[in-house]
């Protein structure tokens, strides 16, 4: 089985937001819900770097550990998914997530939260693959079609990589060796308890 991961090469990311709108386009994500976003640090200063962020599909995902209704599960490809039928919108996962991935639609007048929504690695949810039922709750299931997440596929500078962890680590390693610099595989230590040594 492949171990699916995301890797954002901050030395390539130009904050063009293609990953953000590609995600919106593919899954018809509503206004206000951001499964993916680009964060820029040192904005406007030398050393400015941008990183595209979404659910990293952690090994030993903290969201799953804190969920009171056990709605999370990890697929054989190591993609962390959840069931919106079980989710009660409690928000615990939001506090547990080191990447700010969980999103909640506001459903009531008192700021009450709806079912949690997050990046599915374009892998849908518990419903049968590639059905309307799955699409309406979780969006498209590209993985089941043999395709990778659209955000990474459409990344303008090929900064955001998705795929088997070993393959994308090798791509990144080769890049860093060629160019002689690299800010590291951002978020990998936190998400996967490993890093990429060059």
């Amino acid at each position: 089985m492949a171990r699916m991961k995301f890797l954002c090469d901050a030395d390539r990311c130009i904050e063009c937001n293609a990953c953000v709108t590609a995600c919106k386009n593919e899954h018809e994500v509503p206004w206000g819900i951001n499964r993916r976003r680009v964060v820029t640090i040192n904005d406007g200063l030398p050393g400015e770097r941008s990183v595209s962020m979404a659910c990293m599909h952690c090994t030993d995902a903290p969201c799953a550990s804190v969920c009171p209704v056990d709605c999370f599960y990890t697929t054989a490809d190591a993609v962390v998914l959840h069931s919106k039928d079980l989710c009660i919108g409690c928000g615990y996962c939001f506090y547990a997530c080191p990447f700010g991935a969980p999103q909640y639609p506001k459903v009531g007048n008192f700021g009450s939260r709806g079912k949690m929504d997050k990046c599915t690695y374009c892998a849908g949810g518990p419903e049968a693959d590639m059905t309307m039922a799955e699409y309406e709750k979780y969006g498209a299931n590209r993985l089941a079609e043999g395709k990778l997440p659209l955000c990474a596929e459409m990344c303008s500078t090929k900064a955001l990589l998705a795929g088997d962890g070993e393959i994308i680590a090798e791509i990144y390693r080769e890049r860093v060796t060629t160019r002689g610099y690299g800010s590291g595989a951002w978020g990998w230590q936190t998400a996967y308890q490993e890093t990429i040594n060059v």
Partner: protein
Amino acid sequence: MLVKRKSGQAGRSRLQSAVAGLASATLDRRSFLKRSGLAVGGLAAAGTLGAGTVRKAAAGPMMEGVEVDIRKNICTHCSVGCTVTAEVQNGVWTGQEPSWNSPINRGTHCAKGASVRELVHGDRRLKYPMKRQNGEWVRISWDDAFSEIGQKLVELRENSGADSVYWLGSAKFSNEGSYLCRKLAAFWGTNSVDHQARICHSTTVAGVANTWGYGAMTNSYNDIRNSKTVIFMGSNAAEAHPVSLQHILSGKEQQQANVFVFDPRFTRTAAHATEYVRMRSGTDIAVIWGIMHHIFANGWEDQDFIDARVFGMDEVRAECEKWTPERVENVTGIPGEQLRRVAETFATQKPATFIWCMGGTQHTVGTANVRAYCNLLLATGNVGKAGTGANIFRGHCNVQGATDLGLDISNLPLYYGLTEGGWRHWSRVWEVDYDYFVSRFDEVPAKAGREARTREQNMQTPGIPSTRWFDATLLDAEEVDQRDNLKAMIVLGHGGNTVPRQPEVKAGLEALELLVVVDPHPTSFASLHARPDGTYLLPAATQFECNGSRTCSNRSIQWYEKIVDPIFESATDYWIMYRLAQELGFAEEMFKNIEMVEGKFGPEPSAESLLREINRGGWSTGYCGQSPERLKAHMANQDKFDLVTLRAPADAPDVGGDFYGLPWPCWGTPEVRHPGTHILYNSEVHVMDGGGNFRPRFGLERDGVTLLAEGTSSVGAELDDGYPEFTMAVLRELGWDGDLTAEELSQIERQGGDDVDAVSWSTDLSGGIQRVVMEHGCVPFGNGKARAVAWNLPDPVPQHREPIYTPRPDLVAEFPTRDDAREFRVPNIGHTVQQAAIDKGIPESFPIVLTSGRLVEYEGGGEETRSNRWLAELQQDMFVEINPADAAERGITDGGWVWVTGPENDSRARVKALVTERVGKGAAFMPFHFAGWYQGESQRGNYPEGTDPIVLGEMVNQITTYGYDPVTGMHEGKATLCQIEAA
């Protein structure tokens, strides 16, 4: 605990029996690796692919069991030319997939390209024709719209002349649409026909064409992968052309390249440079002469290149001597040592390329800036080779094509001049009597001491630039050098908020008798004013709803197919222009050689046959070899083209040996199979491999010095020295006329009449001259020198001139703007304005330099992109970037509201403050995509219901000020003054 889903096999295909064939195809290893973001080759052996990852492949969208059509189109935003792959079900665009095979974007997009599907869902689009009646928007039918508009146009023509109507076309047109719009203006009888190139790269086209022959990017985005040194000047490609950064950053990594960014702002592009150089807005010439000062002082110039291929460099050298490091630092703010480092790197770590955009072009000295950039390239021998060149990143998806097709006030299609020769050429192609066109133009009476013009003279006089149309409406009729003021604007696909002096634009709109907006969106042309009557909105389809070809910045031409039929009641540009021509009574003549096809609302001209007509007349620029069949073959075989050279292998079927998109010039008839020209002026290869040299178009000698190349010509040329352009006379002198076929000769003799010798490579409709010349290895336009000195332009050697509104009044005495003059039928009083500003103490009361630019999420005037919910969500507020020191002095906090005020028209704009070091102290930046607010008031109510963009905001161009380039009428969009205070 939830039961884990099995993941070895897909549960079932989203698409059922109808696409069973597709669904059974498994992904091969190569395409999987491509999807992992892997560069071609190299790493193929590195990773192993888990068996479970390979699954059934199927197309993806969301109507279960409905057949999927795949259609390829091109992104309609910037000029990079990214292929868009659409999945269509039941006539609805349901999914967008990466376009892996395009050598330009290789699957990728930016925020805009990744969201284009939303454009044809279009809940904010204009849905049917409308007009304003007693202040209310009412729905009308297409037929009523055409007949009312047609009637009014005929009436205006009678009372005020053909020049009283302005035809403002679009860089969003296809090539065929652009050509049609220019042809329409010719039949109507005016040269006041323009498009976004005016405000984008008009000064580039003028400056570059006057230097070495053609006004276009010399190399390509892909070719920058070869560069060892890259300078960006006034270009923020990371936001304006994001996909180009894929090539640039890859190249930078692989070549260990030096990347310098010169800009008043530390841009997103600067963040990825090896060195950022902060400069003061509007001092480009001083910067370039400062760089060249070091080059000449240290002997880093390429003297062999200069001797063989450049005219007049000594005069430039003399000017550069005056620009000592101290003087340069005083004017530009850049330390001498930093410029020395840039100079040495650029001149010695070659190949080096120079990239510029609006930061260079939108100035009163725009054309001169461009020529200074070219001089830096010429002095260092960085033109005409891989990895070098003037890589001019154009702005809109077809601004290069629309420029080429003559959607311009001073050209006919393909740069044929407004001279008798130019008009006769197109009359011949169109098979319409030359005298017919003469009869369509106005006679211009003598006014205010100026001479009268006959119809024929008026036909040869450039029209009014799009930056000045409102002056032609508002000025006293005596001041406007045509029969009458401008009375009507026909705006097809053009934003209104993209030129300075918006308060005056508003007054101009209110003074018009007729305003017709043909656009998918109402634009600020419709919303800025409250004219109670005489405004029509006609819903045009986007280019995703029709087919045709577009030319990207690198001159590659891509054919695209319609994804869906025009939505709502919108219609294609082709049909709208055909119907207008019908209403105006010249459709039959205008379309006599054009094949009509059945469109949504009836017959409309076919894009293929329009392109064939362009091919028949496109000799001057090499638009003659790109037949629709060849272009379609390129789109079908995108995977055959090399990523860096853009060339297909010789044995590839249908496209063998071609460069991708047959970048112009693609000489000769399609049958000659010229491969197109990837790199302009490249004498290292044969002309039939895309070789060339500089174009001698300014005479054969000057001051006793030859203007032809010396001792050099392109590989394989039978003439090994400079040579002039080819005419029948030259062919006869060389004895090459015998190579013409009988058919070619008879065409040449027929069109030459009693002066067959004068028929040339650019007028010979048989293509014979080009064919024969290339068989002898020569370039049809000749082999000349580039000009370091353009003696026919103002400031033959570019001179630094302070912006009209300068923060440095102490420098104005030494570097004043040019004297007042009359250009393009209206006065250009920059000098008076500059003096008045200093006399009034403007630099003290408006101490902050204001510049403007793009955001990645929006494009152009922004109506379309601000109507796209996926983009609008990302930028919801108009803002001004201000330095923390300036903000602190003014009590301005990050995110707080501020008033930005300008020195003209009591202009003011209420926007949010973005406090950032991105701009230096004393500088501010505002994006130009916003409209729909005016001086603190929302104008949402001025839009017809349901067509208002999601995000509205103040226009930066109500703050920007007077100032026009003398050569092209380009506005000053990048250097003015403002004041900012907390609101």
